[in-house]
């Protein structure tokens, strides 16, 4: 395998994000300003924003969602960076992971020493139908033409996976339950409730209205109840899908040799991979994401580490099946074993390979352009032992990763950070 390397080392010295949610009274600028302020405040030894030399901003489709394009200069002006360069990156739901990657390359090349990378998306001010239509702009045309939706694409992947490995929708429920167990521990999560808590709320609400209270024995029974968890694109049901969200996230990157001026706990970028995928018509396998496999190959190839060296990871779970397949494509589990790993609790917060300690896209929220860097914000928190109640309690926690997927697998990234 070709050993890829950066021209010089790059480190993360600051990170921040908004709480994800549906904001009636905040727009993209308000959200980014919030994330930016938190990021500046996160730099241990203090940071003067004048030191930022360029901005890389991920945004998928504010053009469609709020009818405004060309966001990089707008955000650059907002944070007092103009007339310095500002560049927008677009890779659907992986837009800000691309911003991070471009920022890394800009520093590694020696051109800049300090850059700001991040992402923003404002989705909740349009109707659900319009959001679905907006997201569908990132599907493969042959699929869109016959009536595929985003959830539908993942529904197809799920039926292919079920047929090949003998899994079922019940196995996907374990992903949902696990994500929602982590979310209440994350103050930035959009849906900070366990499935059990949401069940109880529904029961109390029914009682309050004098209706017969639903009788669910456990979470699985609740998620199997089609009136509580209706199909969206079978076998994808409501609780297999991430919510509609607004939010922003950002990070400050610096050349490794100067990172110590800002913090004694920088995170080094030791692996950074990307790949591109294709539609079903051309895909070699319906149960793997080629783009993820390529991203993993690049990132592992650069870092020289193996999947078993990754101590925890954020994994793109726009739909429950996506998390399972990606944990296989990233090498955390063998092909066809990902669903068993979730069932056996291996990916829980206290398991041997915690996945989506933040609550994942499913419960933390998924403002698409902001997701990539928000996943890395979680890695930042964990590796610096600042994750509070959801802190991964492994000895010598040193290496964490984030995997981000765009569209239906067209763009995927895998980024590995290390605290030295």
């Amino acid at each position, binding site marked *: 395998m070709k050993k890829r390397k950066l021209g010089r080392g790059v480190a993360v010295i600051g990170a921040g994000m908004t709480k994800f949610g549906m904001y009636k009274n905040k727009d993209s600028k308000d959200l980014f300003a919030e994330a930016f302020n938190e990021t500046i405040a996160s730099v241990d030894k203090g940071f003067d924003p004048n030191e930022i030399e360029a901005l890389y901003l991920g945004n998928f489709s504010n053009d469609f969602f709020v009818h405004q394009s060309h966001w990089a200069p707008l955000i650059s002006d907002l944070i007092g960076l103009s007339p310095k360069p500002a560049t927008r990156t677009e890779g659907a739901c992986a837009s800000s992971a691309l911003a991070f990657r471009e920022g890394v390359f800009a520093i590694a090349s020696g051109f800049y020493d300090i850059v700001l990378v991040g992402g923003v998306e404002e989705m909740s001010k349009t109707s659900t139908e319009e959001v679905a239509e907006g997201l569908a702009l990132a599907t*493969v045309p042959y699929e869109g033409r016959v009536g*595929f*939706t985003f959830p539908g694409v993942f*529904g*197809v992947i799920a*039926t292919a996976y079920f047929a090949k490995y003998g899994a079922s929708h019940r196995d996907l429920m374990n992903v949902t339950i696990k994500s929602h167990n982590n979310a209440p521990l994350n103050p930035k999560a959009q849906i900070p409730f366990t499935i059990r808590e949401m069940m109880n709320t529904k029961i109390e609400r029914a009682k309050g209205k004098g209706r017969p209270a639903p009788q669910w024995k456990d979470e699985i029974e609740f998620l199997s109840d089609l009136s509580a968890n209706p199909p969206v694109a079978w*076998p994808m049901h409501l609780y297999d899908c991430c919510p509609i969200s607004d939010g922003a996230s950002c990070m400050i990157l610096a050349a490794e040799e100067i990172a110590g001026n800002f913090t004694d706990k920088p995170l080094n970028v030791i692996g950074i991979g990307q790949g591109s995928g294709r539609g079903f018509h051309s895909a070699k396998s319906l149960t793997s994401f080629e783009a993820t496999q390529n991203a993993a190959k690049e990132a592992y190839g650069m870092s020289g580490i193996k999947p078993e060296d990754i101590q925890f990871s954020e994994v793109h779970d726009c739909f429950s099946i996506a998390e399972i397949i990606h944990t296989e494509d990233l090498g955390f589990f063998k092909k066809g074993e990902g669903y068993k790993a979730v069932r056996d609790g291996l990916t829980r917060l206290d398991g041997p390979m915690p996945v989506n300690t933040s609550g994942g896209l499913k419960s933390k929220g998924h403002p698409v352009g902001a997701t990539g860097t928000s996943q890395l914000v979680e890695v930042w928190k964990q590796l610096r032992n600042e994750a509070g109640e959801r802190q991964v309690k492994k000895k010598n926690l040193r290496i964490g990763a984030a995997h981000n997927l765009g569209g239906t697998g067209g763009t995927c990234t895998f980024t590995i950070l290390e605290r030295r």
Partner: protein
Amino acid sequence: MEKKIFSDIEYNEYLNKKKLMGSKCKKCGSLFTPPRPICIDCYGTDMEWIEMKGTGKLAAFTCISIGPPFMIKEGFDRKHPYCVGVVELDEGTKVDARIEGIDPGKPETIKVGMPLAVKYLHREKKGEKLTYLAFEPA
């Protein structure tokens, strides 16, 4: 006669005429559906049109309850879901298609691997004839 280029426009024109066409690389023999202008196996650009038999098997599927606006217009909704899937053709390539002749309300009864045969569904869009690729149990 002008030679048809290996494009989506020509592919869709063929679908309108109830022909499922692919392109075959004359250099290495690789076959593609939908057609490609450039062979991704050998970078050959000398292609020929090949008509597919129109039979295959269901590789994977989904039954959609919340569809895009044009499917809602056709009458599909939560109570009336529709099925779309990926069909592996006997020639070995894959296509995306609507799946008909099954019950999208009972997805448990739809089986990956079931043999299928092509049919064509037409719809109008701004006065223009558009054809969906569809398959039904063979």
